[in-house]
C-alpha cells in the first residue's frame, strides 16, 4: 500500500516535471553579441524579446569581452543550439570558437545573420561563405560579386568596387522575390518597412545563396539605384542560414527599424526556418501594407489582448512583465474613450478576482493600476485585504482610492 502511494506520488511528480518542461519552448537559440559598431546592448535584448515572443525558442545570450580585450576566454560550444543569432562584429573569436562554429554550421546548425553581423570577419573565408554577402572591412571585388535583382533576375556582378554602403535612413518597400519560400509564405508580397538603414552594394562569395526579398535603393536617398537584397538564405554544408540586412539600431532608446512588424515577423520565421527547415508560425493577422509601415513597440500585435491578459495572469517574479506595460500604455492612450477604459477596468477586475491569477500578478495590479479603479473595485480590494499574502497591497489600493 505504502509503495503504491509512493509510486502514485512519484508518477504524479514526473508528470508535473514533464508539464513544467513542456512549458519551456523546445528550440534553443543563442544570441552572440558584445562588440558591434551598432548599439548591441539594445539590439541584443530586442532580438531576445522578439524570439521570446515567437513562443518556440528558449534563448541564451553570450556577450564577448569589450573590443581590444583578451578574447581567449570567449569559448562557445554551439552544439546545444538549434539556431545561433549573430549580432556581433568585432575582434576575432579564438580559434576554438571559430572551429566550433564551422563544425556547428556544416553539421546542420541554423544561423541568423542580423544587420551589421555581415560586417564581421572580412578575412575569414568560411565565415563569408556562411553569411553569403558582407560589407565594409575592406571588402571589394576579391570578396566576391555584388548581388542584386534586375528585371526579375538575380544578377551576380563581378565589377570592381567597395563592398557595403548605405544611404540616408528612410522608410522603404520590401518586396518578395521568392514569395513561396516558407519564411515568406502567407505574407504580403510588398510591405512598407519602418525607417531603417538600407544596406547596398554588399558583396561576398554568395554561394548557395537565394534572395528572398529585396528593396529598391534609391539614388535620391544616397543609395545604389539597384534592387538590393535584404532577406536571404544560404546553405553551408548541412547548415541553413537566414540573413536579414534589416533592423538598424543606432543611439535611439527604442530603435524603430527593429520595431517594424515586417522585421519582427521575418526574423521569427527566418530563425525557425534556420533551426528546423520549416516554418510552423502562422502569418500574423495584421501586417504593413505596401503604403503603410507598421510599428510593433512590443514586437507583437497587441490588438488582441487575450494572450497578453493570459501572460499577466501567469506572471511570476523573474518572468517578463510586459503585459502590464502594454496595459498601462493602452490605458493612457485611450483615457478619453470611456468604452475602452471600462474594458481595461474589467480586465483588471477579472484578473484580481480570478483564482488562476498569480499572487505576483495581483500585487502589481493592486499597486500600479489602482489609480484607474472605479467603484466596483472597492469590495474586491476589501476582500483581497483578507488574504495575508495580498493584505499590504490591497491596503495600498484602498488608500489610493480613498477609504
Amino acid at each position: 500500500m505504502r509503495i503504491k502511494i509512493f509510486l502514485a506520488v512519484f508518477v504524479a511528480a514526473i508528470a508535473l516535471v514533464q508539464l513544467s518542461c513542456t512549458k519551456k519552448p523546445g528550440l534553443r537559440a543563442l544570441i552572440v553579441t558584445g562588440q558591434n559598431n551598432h548599439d548591441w546592448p539594445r539590439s541584443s535584448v530586442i532580438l531576445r524579446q522578439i524570439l521570446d515572443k515567437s513562443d518556440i525558442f528558449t534563448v541564451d545570450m553570450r556577450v564577448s569581452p569589450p573590443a581590444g580585450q583578451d578574447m581567449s576566454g570567449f569559448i562557445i560550444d554551439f552544439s546545444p543550439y538549434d539556431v545561433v543569432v549573430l549580432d556581433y562584429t568585432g575582434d576575432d573569436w579564438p580559434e576554438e570558437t571559430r572551429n566550433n562554429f564551422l563544425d556547428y554550421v556544416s553539421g546542420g546548425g541554423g544561423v541568423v545573420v542580423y544587420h551589421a553581423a555581415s560586417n564581421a570577419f572580412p578575412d575569414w573565408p568560411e565565415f563569408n561563405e556562411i553569411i553569403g554577402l558582407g560589407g565594409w572591412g575592406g571588402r571589394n571585388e576579391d570578396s566576391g560579386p555584388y548581388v542584386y535583382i534586375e528585371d526579375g533576375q538575380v544578377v551576380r556582378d563581378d565589377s570592381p568596387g567597395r563592398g557595403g554602403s548605405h544611404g540616408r535612413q528612410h522608410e522603404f518597400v520590401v518586396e518578395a522575390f521568392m514569395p513561396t519560400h516558407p519564411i515568406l509564405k502567407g505574407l504580403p508580397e510588398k510591405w512598407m518597412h519602418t525607417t531603417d538603414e538600407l544596406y547596398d552594394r554588399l558583396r561576398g562569395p554568395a554561394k548557395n545563396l537565394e534572395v528572398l526579398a529585396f528593396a529598391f535603393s534609391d539614388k535620391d536617398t544616397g543609395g545604389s539605384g539597384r534592387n538590393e537584397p535584404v532577406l536571404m538564405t544560404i546553405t553551408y554544408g548541412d547548415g541553413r542560414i537566414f540573413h536579414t540586412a534589416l533592423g538598424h539600431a543606432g543611439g535611439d532608446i527604442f530603435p524603430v527599424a527593429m520595431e517594424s512588424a515586417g522585421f519582427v515577423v521575418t526574423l521569427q520565421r527566418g530563425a525557425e526556418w534556420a533551426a528546423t527547415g520549416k516554418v510552423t508560425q502562422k502569418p500574423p493577422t495584421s501586417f504593413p501594407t505596401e503604403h503603410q509601415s507598421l510599428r510593433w513597440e512590443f514586437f507583437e500585435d497587441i490588438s488582441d489582448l487575450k494572450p497578453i491578459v493570459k501572460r499577466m495572469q501567469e506572471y511570476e517574479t523573474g518572468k517578463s512583465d510586459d503585459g502590464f506595460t502594454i496595459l498601462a500604455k493602452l490605458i493612457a492612450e485611450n483615457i478619453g474613450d470611456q468604452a475602452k477604459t471600462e474594458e481595461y477596468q474589467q480586465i483588471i477586475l477579472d484578473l484580481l478576482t480570478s483564482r488562476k491569477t498569480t499572487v505576483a500578478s495581483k500585487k502589481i495590479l493592486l499597486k500600479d493600476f489602482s489609480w484607474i479603479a472605479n467603484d466596483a473595485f472597492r469590495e474586491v480590494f476589501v476582500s483581497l485585504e483578507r488574504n495575508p499574502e495580498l493584505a499590504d497591497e490591497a491596503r495600498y489600493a484602498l488608500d489610493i482610492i480613498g477609504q
Partner: protein
Amino acid sequence: MGFFPAIIKASALGRDGHMAPSDKINMIAIGVGSMGQSNLHEFLKHSEVQVVAICDVDDNHLAATKKLIDEAYGNNDCRVYKDFREILEKEDADAAMLALPDHWHAIVACSVANKKIDIYGEKPMARSIVESRAILDAVQRNEVIWQTGSWQRSHEHFHKACELVRNGRIGQVDFVEVGLPNGGHYVGNPGVRPLPEGLDWEMWLGPAPAVPFRGVVHWNWRWIDDYSGGQLTDWAGHHIDIAHWGLGLDRSGPVSIEGTGRRNNDGIYNVFAEYDFTCMYENGVKMRVANQAKTQQGMGTYWKGSDGWIHVWRGGLKASDDTILNERIGQNEIRLYKSNNHVANFLQCIRSREETITSAPTAHSAITAGLLGEIAMKTGQKLLWDPKTERFTDNNPHASRLLRRPYRAPWTLPA
C-alpha cells in the same frame, strides 16, 4: 578654539535657539551611499563643520564613510547608526545632510526638521507632490534652513543665464525647452536574489511596497517607479529649476500639463525611458520638458524670447547673439541671489538664518512640475492644475490619486 573640538551642541549657545557664530556646526549624515559620500567630501573641506555621526541601512556604506570621516579628522569618533530614528534620538545635531532614495525623502526630512535641525537635502524634494509639500511645510513650520542639492544655481554661468533672461535681454519669453537625460536603462526581469551581506532590505524599502530583493538597490533604484521617476525626476531639480529661476516662476507652478512617455517594454526598470510633456504657466509661458533625444537643443535649459534666445547647460552658455552674453546687469535691475559655493551657502545661512539659494519652496516648485509631467504621462490626460491650492482644478479623480503615495505600515508622514 581650544585643543578639543567643540562637541557641545552649538545651538545651545546661540541666540533664538540657534548657534552662535563662533562655534562648530555639528552635522549628521543620513544616507551615505555614493551621493552622500560625495556631499560629505565637500562638507569635510569646511573646518566649521564637524561631522559627528552617520546613518545608513548598509554596513558597507557605513564602514566606507566612517573611514572617510575618521581619516579626515585623524580620530575614531564618527558614530554610526542603521536607523535614522536612533541617530535623531541620540545625536544633538545642528545640521543634517540627507542623501536617500526618493521614496524615503519625506519621512526622514520631516523627522529631521521637527527636531529643528537644518538640512542639506538631496534633490528631488520627494517622490510625490503631497510628500514634497509636507517637507516644505515642516521646514517652514520649524523655521529650519533648507538647502537643496541643486548646485547648478551656485555656478556662475547658470546664474548669468537666469539673470539675463529675468532682465529681458532676450525680450518677452514665451517658450522654454528643458532637455534632460535619456532613460532606457535595462536589466530585464531578474529573479529573486540572496540579500547582500550588511544590507537591511526591509529598512531600505521602508514605506515602499514590500518586494523581494532582485539584485537592484543602490544607485539603480532610480529606474524603478516605486522609488523614483527616473531621469525626469532626478534632473527636474536641475534644469527645470533653472528654467523656473530664469522665468521668475520658482515659487509657482504650471496651470496645465500634458504629454506622453514610453517605458521599457518589460523588466524591473519601469520608469519613463522617453518623456515629453508641456507645462503652460498662467502668464502664457510654455515649458517643454523632454529627454534630450527629443529636444532641439539637447541637454539644458533653452529660453526663447521675442528678441533672441539663451541656452545654458553644464558644458556652456550660448545666446542667439554673443552681445547678449556680454550685457551688464545694472544696479536697478533684478539681481538674482548669488552663491559661488553651494555647501558654503548652506553653512552661511545656518549662521545668518537667511534663505539659501535653493530653498525649500523653489525645490518644491521644480519637482512639482516634473511630477505633474509624470502623472500626465501615466494617465494620458491633460491636467488642469492650481499651483496655489495644489489641486487639479477639475478635481480629476484619477490624477488626484497619483498626487501621493500610500505608505506601508507602520510608516506614516510625521505630523
